[in-house]
């Protein structure tokens, strides 16, 4: 037996005696009004606190909470000594009479970790200890116990018989007691909202009982202050005692409900995994088995040396020392996944999550493969996107080089030729005609170069955005084009370019094949997507699977995770619709 267990057994024995002494004294007392009540509640409450306190102490030795609970029990038994007829014992009971409430408030505020957190909690506990010790002793020193004709023994430490001062101290204790209760309720309420769901499950019975008890104590104090007496006061007192008796059991319930049995959790999980869970259900199964809704799974990808979630998105594990704990799951000697869970889960049974993780290792490994595949797909998508972006930038640079270089030189040459021609003034032996011919050739070359550059990259689009670019497309089109709504703000470059190419290609097809009298273009931004629609009143019958134009558009839009649809019944015009995701 460890020294802790031996000490706890000794305390248990002492607790048995501590409860039995006032019980024995109760039957011999000659100044007791409600003997039966004391006989039942005195030892019951004391023993309940001591027993549950020692249990909690044994389960979590490092947590001072169990010790506090035991202290409440002992103090309660000690306060029962007031039933004694021997003046020394009687006065000891009176001195310790309110101390159980000091420990009780301290305990309620220290649940569940055994330490006080926050200034309000510390202030409330300091105040209640002041009330129950310093003020209580001061009161005993000036209170004549024989005055009230209760048959009580005389006060052997009465220094100064001052009924007025004694009443004043009692009044102050009651008033300050109300303040403590108010602080207690505020703090308990606040605590309930600042914890994880897992912790809350254990806190609820405790805090509920604590708040109801505090309210009953407040009623007792108000009754004291206002001088209510008779059956009403008795009823309030009895209600308060009943609630007090319930407190340890509420704490026991709270402690037990946060415990998850290892065998139960593993059994549950194995049953659920037998039904071959879908993606994402594995997490739910583990969360349910462990009773931790916040549980998260991270799958290990050895190739990329990183963790991903079930969708293949990268995740990072929490720092050690946070309120989250991590359990690594291995299968056949290699890491498969990590379970991130609420650290309080491990308080009762540090091996619990590891055991559950081992039971789920095969399912985790399967889902890991799935996640790996998803991560690869995601990687491919990103690299396709990069290829498109790089290609786009290269074409843009090429167009700019053509525009700023060769095109400018040819333009200057054309102007120079024209200048030369105007300087000849006729006396030129046909040189003027030669120059004019050269000028015309040059103009053709410039115009061809311009078309080439525009085909490489639509500079108007990157310089001025979609509205201007579409207006330019419409202006150059031989078929009248009505440009409807176009988002005025700039779209992401690849999206803008894909939309432009869809429209440009669709309009080219209208001119080439549709025999239409007009075409319409609309671009709408809606719900994170850009919707592009090009319609005409032509002959229809376009087949998107034939011809490279529409096929290329599908690829371009598909690379951006978008979709392209062509609706073209013979005789009913053609409608090309593209939907491109856009942040």
């Amino acid at each position, binding site marked *: 037996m460890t020294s802790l267990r031996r000490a706890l057994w000794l305390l248990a024995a002492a607790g048995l005696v501590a409860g039995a002494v006032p019980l024995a004294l109760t039957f011999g007392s000659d100044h007791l009004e409600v003997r039966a009540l004391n006989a039942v509640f005195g030892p019951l409450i004391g023993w309940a606190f001591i027993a549950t306190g020692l249990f909690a102490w044994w389960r979590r030795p490092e947590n001072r909470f169990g010790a506090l609970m035991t202290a409440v029990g002992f103090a309660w038994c000690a306060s029962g000594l007031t039933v004694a007829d021997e003046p020394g014992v009687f006065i000891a009971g009176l001195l310790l009479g309110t101390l159980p409430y000091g420990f009780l408030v301290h305990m309620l505020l220290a649940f569940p970790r055994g330490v006080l957190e926050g200034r309000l909690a510390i202030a409330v506990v300091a105040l209640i200890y002041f009330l129950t010790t310093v003020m209580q002793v001061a009161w005993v020193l000036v209170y004549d116990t024989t005055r009230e004709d209760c048959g009580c023994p005389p006060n052997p430490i009465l220094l100064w018989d001052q009924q007025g001062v004694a009443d004043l101290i009692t009044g102050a204790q009651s008033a300050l007691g109300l303040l403590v209760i108010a602080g207690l309720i505020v703090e308990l309420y606040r605590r309930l909202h600042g914890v994880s769901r897992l912790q809350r499950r254990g806190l609820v019975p405790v805090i509920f009982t604590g708040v109801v008890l505090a309210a009953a104590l407040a009623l007792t104090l108000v009754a004291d202050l206002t001088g209510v007496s008779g059956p009403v006061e008795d009823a309030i007192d009895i209600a308060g005692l009943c609630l007090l008796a319930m407190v340890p059991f509420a704490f026991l319930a709270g402690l037990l409900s946060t415990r998850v049995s290892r065998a139960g959790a593993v059994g549950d999980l194995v049953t659920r995994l037998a039904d071959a869970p879908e993606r994402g259900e594995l997490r739910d199964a583990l969360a349910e088995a462990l009773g931790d809704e916040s549980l998260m799974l991270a799958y290990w990808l050895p190739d990329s040396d990183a963790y991903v979630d079930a969708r293949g998105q990268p995740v990072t594990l929490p720092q050690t020392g946070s309120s989250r704990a991590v359990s690594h799951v291995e299968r056949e000697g290699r890491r498969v996944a990590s379970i991130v869970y609420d650290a309080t889960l491990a308080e009762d049974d540090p091996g619990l999550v590891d055991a559950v993780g081992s039971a789920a290792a095969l399912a985790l490994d399967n889902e890991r493969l799935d996640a790996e595949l998803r991560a690869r797909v995601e990687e491919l998508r990103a690299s396709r996107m990069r290829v498109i972006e790089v290609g786009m930038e290269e074409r843009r640079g090429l167009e700019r080089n053509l*525009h*700023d270089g060769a*095109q*400018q*030189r*040819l*333009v*200057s*040459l*054309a*102007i*120079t030729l*024209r*200048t030369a021609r*105007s*300087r000849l003034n006729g006396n030129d032996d046909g040189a003027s005609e030669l120059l004019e011919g050269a000028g015309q050739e*040059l*103009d053709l070359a*410039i*115009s061809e170069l*311009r078309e080439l550059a*525009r085909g490489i990259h639509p*500079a*108007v689009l990157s*310089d*001025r955005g979609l*509205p*201007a670019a*579409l*207006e*330019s497309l*419409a*202006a*150059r089109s031989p078929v009248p084009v009505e440009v409807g709504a176009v988002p005025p703000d700039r779209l992401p470059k690849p999206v803008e370019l894909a939309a432009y190419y869809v429209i440009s290609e669709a309009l080219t097809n209208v001119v080439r094949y549709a025999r239409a009298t007009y075409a319409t273009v609309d671009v709408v931004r809606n719900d994170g997507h850009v919707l592009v629609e090009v319609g005409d009143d032509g002959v229809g019958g376009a087949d998107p699977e034939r011809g490279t134009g529409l096929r290329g558009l599908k690829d371009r839009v598909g690379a951006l995770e978008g979709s392209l649809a062509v609706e073209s019944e013979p005789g009913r015009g053609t409608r090309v619709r593209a939907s491109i995701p856009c942040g």
Partner: protein
Amino acid sequence: MPISVLIVDDHPSFRASARMLLECEGYEVVGEAVDGAQALAEAARLTPDVVLLDVGLPDLDGFEVTSRLAGNGGPAVVLTSSRECCDYGSLAERSGARGFITKAELSGARLGALLA
């Protein structure tokens, strides 16, 4: 008195050939500017009759410079570009410029027709 012209373009080869052509055809080229800011300063200093303005300037947008120049009694602005006018949709019309001449088609006669 010849019509005074300010040529604005960031390409020196175009400025030189345009100056030669316009001077040859009876215009007086009073200055040159390489970007939008300089164009605004030089136009204020030289008060030319016409500003021949490239659309694609390195700092300001040519249409923006046009709307700043063309307001209340400023010079006539004629836009130019190695691209075609329809590349810019209706921007040239809306900017308040007197007209647009594609660079390769620049001549004294075209300019004169726009100013008439």
